[in-house]
């Protein structure tokens, strides 16, 4: 059985907005949400800026006891899932609960919870660890909490493939719905990386920008970390049409690959193989693609490698592309989900979000990156790329 798969619900919480509409309005306006970091003490890491979900307060969403049970990354997962499910209008009856699936992506799970516990042990000389730490820190905490929320008892799991986590998660959910092994799926990713221990580790990697994120710009100085979640509701197109659901778009293909090249250096060959695999999975020709939501981290290594990979497929007819990480930051295991939301909304509304903070073309990235200002464009197919440390690539193909 092969079914078309519709996206009927989208939920987003991240630096660019704490609802889907706020997020999309900020992206369309080209507003970068990169600001001075507040979640760790000022001056404690070399890079001062981040894309935090500014103004987020757990008590606005959760009863105190429930908030205590959830690390920030799992809170974000549940908030985005609630918005997506409400948006879809799906009611989980007994049959849908039994055949529903949830697949989430997370790179680091509840690292903030762990960091707090370790600080207690090593710095404050505590002899005990907070007892909720294990269920709070597990990478599947978000997926499990969403499962409890809706009583979904089908396949529920979490994928952790660094910055490709969410694309792998959405791709797996897409395949399950397409094949009929799940009747409906909630899929996406969530991340909350702002703990001092993890930020110091990123500092030592020397890939975080000291100012802002300027993907594909000649003067780019690195990525900017972000946080948040996005979730999609996927269901068979026939079901969505039959129940009169709003259809944001369709997932048409999914492809993945491993570079088997280097643990951190990207390989254009591996990235291109994942893009080709997504096209092959859908049966859509490369020429049909009109937009690419790039991985576009703004690091010296990623951007030219990604352009080289894209050129190897599209030759001189490279689609318009942009990196929305310039606005919502790099949300690691949530990145693909936030960018999937941006890509679907772009196709639906016929407007491409820009690459913000762009100042100067780089001959090594000689493509149209929709610099700084959103652009109206009626496009049928769009790719969304995620390429992870570890050489793991996951690419989704969306259709209007």
């Amino acid at each position, binding site marked *: 059985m092969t079914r078309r798969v519709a996206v009927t619900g989208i939920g987003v919480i991240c630096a660019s907005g704490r609802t889907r509409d706020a997020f999309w309005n900020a992206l369309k306006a080209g507003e970068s949400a990169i600001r001075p970091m507040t979640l760790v003490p000022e001056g404690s890491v*070399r890079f001062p800026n981040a894309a935090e979900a500014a103004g987020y307060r757990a008590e606005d969403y959760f009863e105190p006891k429930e908030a205590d049970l959830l690390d920030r990354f799992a809170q974000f997962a549940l908030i985005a899932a609630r918005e997506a499910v409400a948006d879809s209008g799906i009611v989980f009856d007994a049959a849908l609960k039994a055949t529903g699936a949830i697949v989430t992506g997370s790179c680091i799970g509840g690292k903030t919870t762990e960091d707090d516990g370790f600080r207690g042990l090593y710095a404050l000389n505590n002899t005990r660890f907070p007892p909720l730490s294990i269920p709070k820190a597990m990478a599947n905490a978000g997926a499990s909490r969403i499962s409890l929320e809706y009583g979904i008892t089908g396949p529920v799991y979490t994928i952790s493939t660094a910055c490709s986590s969410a694309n792998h998660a959405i791709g797996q959910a897409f395949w399950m719905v397409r094949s009929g092994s799940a009747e409906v799926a909630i899929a996406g990713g969530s991340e909350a990386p702002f703990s001092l221990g993890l930020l110091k580790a990123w500092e*030592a*990697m*020397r890939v975080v920008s*000291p100012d802002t994120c300027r993907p594909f710009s000649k003067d780019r*100085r*690195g990525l900017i970390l972000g946080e948040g979640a996005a979730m999609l509701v996927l269901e068979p197109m026939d079901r969505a049409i039959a129940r009169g659901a709003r259809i944001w778009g369709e997932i048409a293909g999914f492809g993945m690959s491993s570079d088997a090249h*280097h*643990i*951190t*250096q990207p390989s254009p060959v591996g990235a291109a193989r994942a893009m080709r695999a997504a096209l092959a999975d859908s049966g859509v020709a490369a020429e049909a693609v009109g937009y690419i939501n790039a991985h576009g981290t703004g690091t*010296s*290594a990623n951007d030219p490698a990604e352009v080289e990979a894209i050129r190897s497929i599209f030759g001189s007819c490279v689609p318009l592309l942009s990196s929305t990480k310039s606005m919502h930051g790099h949300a690691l295991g949530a990145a693909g989900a936030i960018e999937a939301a941006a890509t679907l909304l772009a196709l639906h509304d016929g407007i491409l979000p820009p690459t913000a903070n762009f100042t100067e073309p780089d001959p090594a990235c000689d493509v149209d990156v929709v610099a700084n200002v959103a652009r109206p464009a009626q496009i049928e197919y769009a790719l969304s790329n995620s390429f992870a440390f570890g050489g793991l690539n996951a690419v989704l193909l969306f259709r209007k």
Partner: protein
Amino acid sequence: MPPELVACVTAVIAKTQHIPPESVTIDSTFEELKIDSLDGINILFALESEFDLDIPDDAARKIRSVREMCEGIEKLVAAKNAALPQT
């Protein structure tokens, strides 16, 4: 360039790379020593500890040889010493 500084930098590189100290000279390039970007940040981390320095990302990114690394460290050490209170 002070020979002690060169000896120290080459020793740190050899130790970090798990290669014989005599294989690292002032004239070695990172390519010859098979030092890639990930090895590079590991070496910078070790040198920061050794010399009690902060090595800025932008300066570090351009370094491709042992000589460039020694020159960079020499400058940073000089700047650090200049910033110390004079007795």
